[in-house]
């Protein structure tokens, strides 16, 4: 039992490698903020580009900021399997969102079409929370709740507020908050880990 607990602690340290730098938070925040801004500026056609943001931020951030400070790893089989399960979850979530969206559009007046943003937000929240489960980062559960509330606000507040779009306000706010938290983690990481000199 003692040995297993210590190996669990070591696995926790390994997962910290993927969360300590805040790059996952920055990527998520940029995607959500970007989504809100593109809708605000009436550029929905560019939403597809948002998928590139995490790739670019993650790759550039890891290679230029993280690796010189804490090195790099190749995860073992158990961790790889966990990541694979996550990507399958993401694909299923994406397919679920698409199906729900199409159902909502084609269903006329129904609960699904009336509360489509809430449903959309719930599915996104599940995806974000599963990312938190994958990388052992509790704060991603809170991000999921934040995103859900931002989306659901669009359904419940849209009719009562006429001066601004609560959905867009909620999405942009949620994205900004997540981005800000990510930047805090990144700055803390950069202060904690100086660039390590030449290897012995």
């Amino acid at each position: 039992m003692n040995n297993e607990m210590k190996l669990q602690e070591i696995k926790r340290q390994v997962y910290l490698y993927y969360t300590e730098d805040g790059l996952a938070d920055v990527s998520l925040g940029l995607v959500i903020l970007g989504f809100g801004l593109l809708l605000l500026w009436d550029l929905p056609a560019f939403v597809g580009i948002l998928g590139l943001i995490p790739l670019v931020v993650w790759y550039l951030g890891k290679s230029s900021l993280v690796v010189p400070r804490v090195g790099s790893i190749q995860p073992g089989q158990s961790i790889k399997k966990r990541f694979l399960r996550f990507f399958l979850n993401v694909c299923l979530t994406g397919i679920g969102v698409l199906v729900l969206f199409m159902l909502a559009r084609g269903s006329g007046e129904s609960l699904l079409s009336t509360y489509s943003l809430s449903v959309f937000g719930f599915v996104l929240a599940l995806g974000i929370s599963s990312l938190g489960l994958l990388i052992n980062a509790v704060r991603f559960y809170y991000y999921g709740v934040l995103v859900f509330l931002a989306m659901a606000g669009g359904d419940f507040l849209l009719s009562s507020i006429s001066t601004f779009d609560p959905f867009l306000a909620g999405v942009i706010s949620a994205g900004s908050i997540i981005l800000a938290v990510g930047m805090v983690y990144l700055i803390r990481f950069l202060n904690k880990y100086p660039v390590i000199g030449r290897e012995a």
Partner: protein
Amino acid sequence: MAEDKENNLDLEMEIDRLIHEPARLKIMAFLSVLDSADFTFLVSRLGLTMGNLSAHISKLQEAGYVEVEKGYKDNRPQTTIALSEEGRQAFEIYRDQMQQILQ
């Protein structure tokens, strides 16, 4: 009961002293959950100096427990360390022995 105690003491005599050293145990433990890690990662996680880590890695390499690959990544020298098959087996045996002793 006395026989169990004697068996546990016998096990203690067989413990792999190379792995049992605290710093090397941590190195082996980290590498057991990874396919490989570079030198910088082990320095940052283990809190050892580069020289200290290098000495421990050399001992493990001499015993055939780890494989060391030196190369370059993004124009920076990179040393990648991975457990060998022999090292994984030795670590598993060590873990089993410690579990028996601690029971």
